[in-house]
Structures are given as C-alpha cells and as structure tokens.
C-alpha cells in the first residue's frame, strides 16, 4: 500500500512539529509514508471565502499530486473533509482517498493502541469538520484512551464550535471571540493541562487566546500526543 502524507499548508508552514510527529508515528507503526513535494493547499480557504475558481485549480492540483496513492493521510480534519466532502461539489474527478489521521489509524491500520506514552491530563475538542464533516466519531478519543499515563477528561459543550471558521475569525471577530471565550471557559473547567484536537487551525485560534490570557493550558495536535513515547517524554 502506498501511503502519502498531506501535511496541509497550515501545518507545513506553521506547525512542522505536527508533521514530524505524524511521520514518526506512522513509521513506528510500520507505514513507509511518502511526501510528494508538489503538494501545497487543498483550496479550502479559497472556497470558503468565496473564491471557487481558485479553489478548483488547487483541487485539481491536489488530485494530480496524489494520484496513484492508495491512501492520503492528513493531520487535519477540515482539510480531509474539504477533499472528501467538498471536492465532489466542485466536480473534481478521481479524488484520492483521503483519511484524517485518526481514521487511518483506526480504520486502515486497525490500531487504537499506538504504543504512546503521555503522562498528562488532557481534554479533547472534537472540531466541527472532524465531527460533522468527516464524522470521525470516537476514533480520536479511543486512541487517546489507550495512551499510557494519559488522563482523558471530558470537555463540557465539546461539540460546540470554537469560533475559528477560517476568515470568519477575522470578518466576524466579535462573535468569533465570544465563541472562543465560551470554549475556553469550558476548557478551564476541566482542569486539563493540555487541550488536544485533530486540527491545528482551531488550535491556532483557541491556543492563541489561551496564550493571550496566560492560562497555562497548552494546546497539542493529536498526532503529537500519539507520537510521544517513554523515550521522547520530557
């Protein structure tokens, strides 16, 4: 099986650590993951902001880049959802088979215990596109529950949007900030040290607010927790 990593433009540029973690994790599980350098962006930002033509160009580019792979793994629920849910609306043909990381682990590799170790109190935010777009369900929390040392605490109002929404965060800054404030209120209630999600865009937004408020709560992508082992633990 030929497996490619679609790192996503946001992770590539701002969160290389998530990509490294995904590669490390997949290799540890015996997957010889490849990285086509021609990849750039899935086109989600353009589409969702109303630039369909630009998005179609990027979608076609994506499809060409990943042609021939049996599976494309993306450490981002919303980018995976863009390809799987939105490309058909854009009349894109031969869409590669894209999985969010947790789907690939649970459905393709059929593992929930990835041999990770992470001795911290963690709460999980499901993110809208993973939850309602991809419908990843309990896969991420099933994976987290098997991580040694990790204490998973439920997040109240978990299914509510954090208010990111791409350009929404800028165009409707006040509503976005109000939504984030409520999300953070719920995170604080859990007493968790780490807020985990499978999408760095949402974490950029929530984490940026947590940092501004000097809350002491860290945000981490699911891949980074699953990649942690006894040797790598601080």
């Amino acid at each position, binding site marked *: 099986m030929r497996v490619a990593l679609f790192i996503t433009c946001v992770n590539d540029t701002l969160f*290389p650590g998530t990509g490294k973690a995904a590669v490390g994790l997949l290799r540890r599980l015996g997957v010889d993951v490849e990285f086509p350098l021609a990849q750039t962006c899935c086109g989600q930002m353009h589409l969702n902001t109303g630039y369909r033509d630009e998005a179609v*160009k990027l979608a076609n580019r994506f499809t060409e880049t990943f042609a021939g792979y049996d599976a494309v793994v993306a450490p981002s629920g919303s980018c995976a959802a863009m390809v799987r849910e939105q490309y058909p609306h854009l009349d894109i043909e031969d869409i590669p088979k894209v999985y969010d990381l947790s789907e690939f682990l649970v459905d393709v590799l059929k593992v929930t215990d990835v041999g990770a170790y992470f001795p911290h109190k963690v709460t999980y935010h499901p993110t809208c596109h993973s939850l309602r777009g991809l419908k990843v369900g309990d896969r991420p929390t099933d994976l987290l529950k098997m991580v040694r040392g990790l204490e998973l605490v439920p997040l109240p109002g978990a299914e509510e949007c954090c208010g990111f929404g791409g350009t929404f965060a800028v165009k409707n800054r006040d*509503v976005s900030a109000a939504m984030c404030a409520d999300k953070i209120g719920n995170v604080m209630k859990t007493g968790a040290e780490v807020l985990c999600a499978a999408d760095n865009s949402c974490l950029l937004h929530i984490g940026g607010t947590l940092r501004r408020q000097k809350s002491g709560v860290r945000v981490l992508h699911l891949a980074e927790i699953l990649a942690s082992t006894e040797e790598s633990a601080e």
Partner: protein
Amino acid sequence: MSGTFVGMPAFPKNAAKAVQNSQLRFNLRKATHTIRGKRAAVVGELDDWAELREAGKAIKDHTLRNLDRYLLQMEEKVTEAGGTVHWARDAAEANRIVARLVKETGETEVVKVKSMATMEIGLNEALAEEGIEAFETDLAELIVQLGDDFPSHILVPAIHRNRAEIRELFLKKMAGAPKDLTDEPRALAEAARLYLRQRFLEAKVAISGANFMIAETGTLVVLESEGNGRMCLTLPKTLISVVGIEKLLPAWQDLEVFLQLLPRSSTGERMNPYTSMWTGATEGQEFHLVLLDNGRTSVLADKVGRQALRCIRCSACLNVCPVYERAGGHSYGSVYPGPIGAILTPQLRGMDTPLDRSLPYASSLCGACYEVCPVAIDIPSVLVDLRGKARHPRTEKAGMAAAGWVFNRSKRLAKAQRFGGRMRRLVPKRLPGPLSGWTDTRDLPDIPAESFRDWWVREGGADGRRPAVPPVGNLPQESRKK
C-alpha cells in the same frame, strides 16, 4: 421583502453590538439551549428519524420540481371548494390584494395568525397605510407588535425579551392590562388572553399563513401551540391566507412525514397542541388564498440555493447555531434570522446592500444547522456558494489572488515559507488592518524557523518516493490489535 430592516449596517457590526449585551446573551442562551435539549430528546426517540428526514427532503424536492403542476392543482381544488385564489408576484402585489380584500368587507380591523410570509412582505405596515389595523394574536408576536419591535426568532419572535420587560410592555401598551400585573408567566398569559379574547370576538376578518398546502385536496394546514390561531381561523367571517408557493405538498399522505418532522424539530414536542386544517370556504364564510412568489421562483432557478425552499421554518437551525446564539436575531436584518436567514435573505432580496452581502459570511461553517435540519438543507454549502456570488472587498481579492499564486507552485510556497522563517522575529504582536481582527484577542503562533517540507528534504526524504530514512520498525503485533 419587507422594508422594515432597510438601512441596517452589515452583520458583523450589528453582531458586535449584540455580543456586548449580556442580558440578551443570557436570554438567548437559556432559551435556545432549552429547546435544543428538548428537540434532541424527542428526535432521539424515533428510530427512523434519518428516514423521515430523507423522506421530507425527497417530497419537498419532488414538489419543487413539479411546482407549476401542483400550484395549478391547488388553485383548482381551492376554487372547487368555494375559495378564491390570488397570485402575487411580489410583496407589493400581495399587500395590495390583501388590503383590497379587507376593504371590500368594510372592516378596518383584522386579527392575525402568526405567519412568516406576512411578516416577510410587511403586511401590517402596508395595511396600516390603508387605515387598517392588524392585531397579532400569537403571544410572542403580540409582544413584538406592542413593543414596536422586530422579531428575532422564527418560532419565538420575542425570544430576546424577558418576563420583566414583557410585564412593563403590557402595562404600557396593552389596553385593559390589570394594574397589579406580575411577571409570572401565568399572569402574563392570562392578561394577554383577556385582551385577545376581545379581539377574537370582535374580528370579522382574519389573516393567516400556512405551514402546508395540500395540492391533492386544496387543504391548508396550520400548526400552533396556543389555540389563538384556531380562533382566528374559525370565528371571523372572512379568512385571507398568504402563503409562499413553496409550502405545497402533493398529497394528504405526505403530512404523515411532516407532522412528525415539524413539531419535534420546532418546539421539541412529539405533537403540537393545535393542528387546524381547512379546505375552501365553510358556508356563510369567505376564504381567499394569496399565493406568494416574492423572489421564490428565482431561488428555485438556482441549482445550489434552491434547497432553501425545502425549509419548513422549524427554527431548529437557529437553536443550535453558535453565531445566532451570540449575535441575536436582529443582527440578520430580516424576519428570517439565523442560518436559514443567512441563506434565504440574500437569495430573496439579492446582495445589493452591505447587510445582505455580509449574511453569507455570518457563519463559521460549523455544520450544526445542517445536522439538525429536518429537510436536510445543506446550509454550509449554500453559504459557501453565495459567498462565491458576493462582491469581494478589493484587499481581500488581492490577498486571495496572491495566496493562490503561491499555492499554485510548491516552489513558491517553499520560498514564501523560508522568507517567513527568516522574518519571524519581525512579526509584530498586533497585526494591522483587517488582520487586527485576529490579534485583538489572540496571540500569533511562533513562526518556525524551518517548514515541514524543508525538514523533510534536509532529513533526506525524497520527493514522493521512499524516504531515505528507513522506517523505525514495526510495533509488536499484540499492540496493533484494536
């Protein structure tokens, strides 16, 4: 659509104000979360909810595809049953027809059943100009009317008002309200009941909308909770119903689906207290049906947007919407607020004003609306489609073009990333211009010195083939099992 909201600023401005109003946010949160919970519970009871939803969608789509045929059938059946059918192209025409019909009765007062269509066309205001006074009889609608206010929710138009405010309003504006009125819901309802009873007894003309129209028999259907609608529909001599052309259903049998979908989605009840159905005119009474287009046929012509016409106005999408909950209904500048308003208003009214252009962006695309919609309207997709049709600000267009240019060649992306990496210490804590929307409340992330792709290449990873670094061995078999 009605002119009542004309001249309102764009959604973000309205919402920014509403967000500051903590009383409003508290009221809205409490109300929407309560209905949301009730809805989830009664929907969860039905094993075949998904099938019902599919059926609802399919019936509506079929009807919309054959609307011409069903409308003529409806006209024929209503006429056969002694009613008169009128066709109204737009709000002005509908208002003219209704005003004329009322005048022909010689009356100057009418009672009204809660109706979105008549709100949409601004009927009350139009009648007032003709010297006809319209009394809303739905409790929440009455509260809005007495307060010279705008509705802020489809089902609960006065959701933004609390009990204390309602009490004051009644004391000030409602004839005959007892001086010692308290803000107990029971007392408030009783005061309204006494006031309305008088209106019902005096009224000779009633105006309604309808939740459904059955083409097969020419029957109209109204679902309600209070029974005030039933009073209006039965007591007065003349009944005038203004109904959007998309409210049709082909046959009686279809009600089986919709009488399950609507109450459960709307009030979170298994069944609503009052369902009134009537076909044509009863002896000694008069019935007029005004079929309203007002932009609907142009919505129907749009491949993506037409699904908005499936809407049965249950307001489930409002009750789960995180944006509606914080921005409030008035921010949408239309009688249709919330997610459905964000896709319906710009389609019905066009996107010529800053407000109407901003509506498709009044969403984080979280998808909660689509998930609960009983007729499976993919609201996020329609929003995105409308965004594509809206005029874009010049700076944004330039930014998007630049991003597209960078993303169209991976080498350009790599260069941009390296440039960003080198400049990372120079990025200010607060961004300028529209981007300040980001840094007002959030910190920027630290920009990494090296992008992922540069790391990959540095590590010896080849382009899309085997990475030079060998895989780090397999996990023991047992830990790979689920």
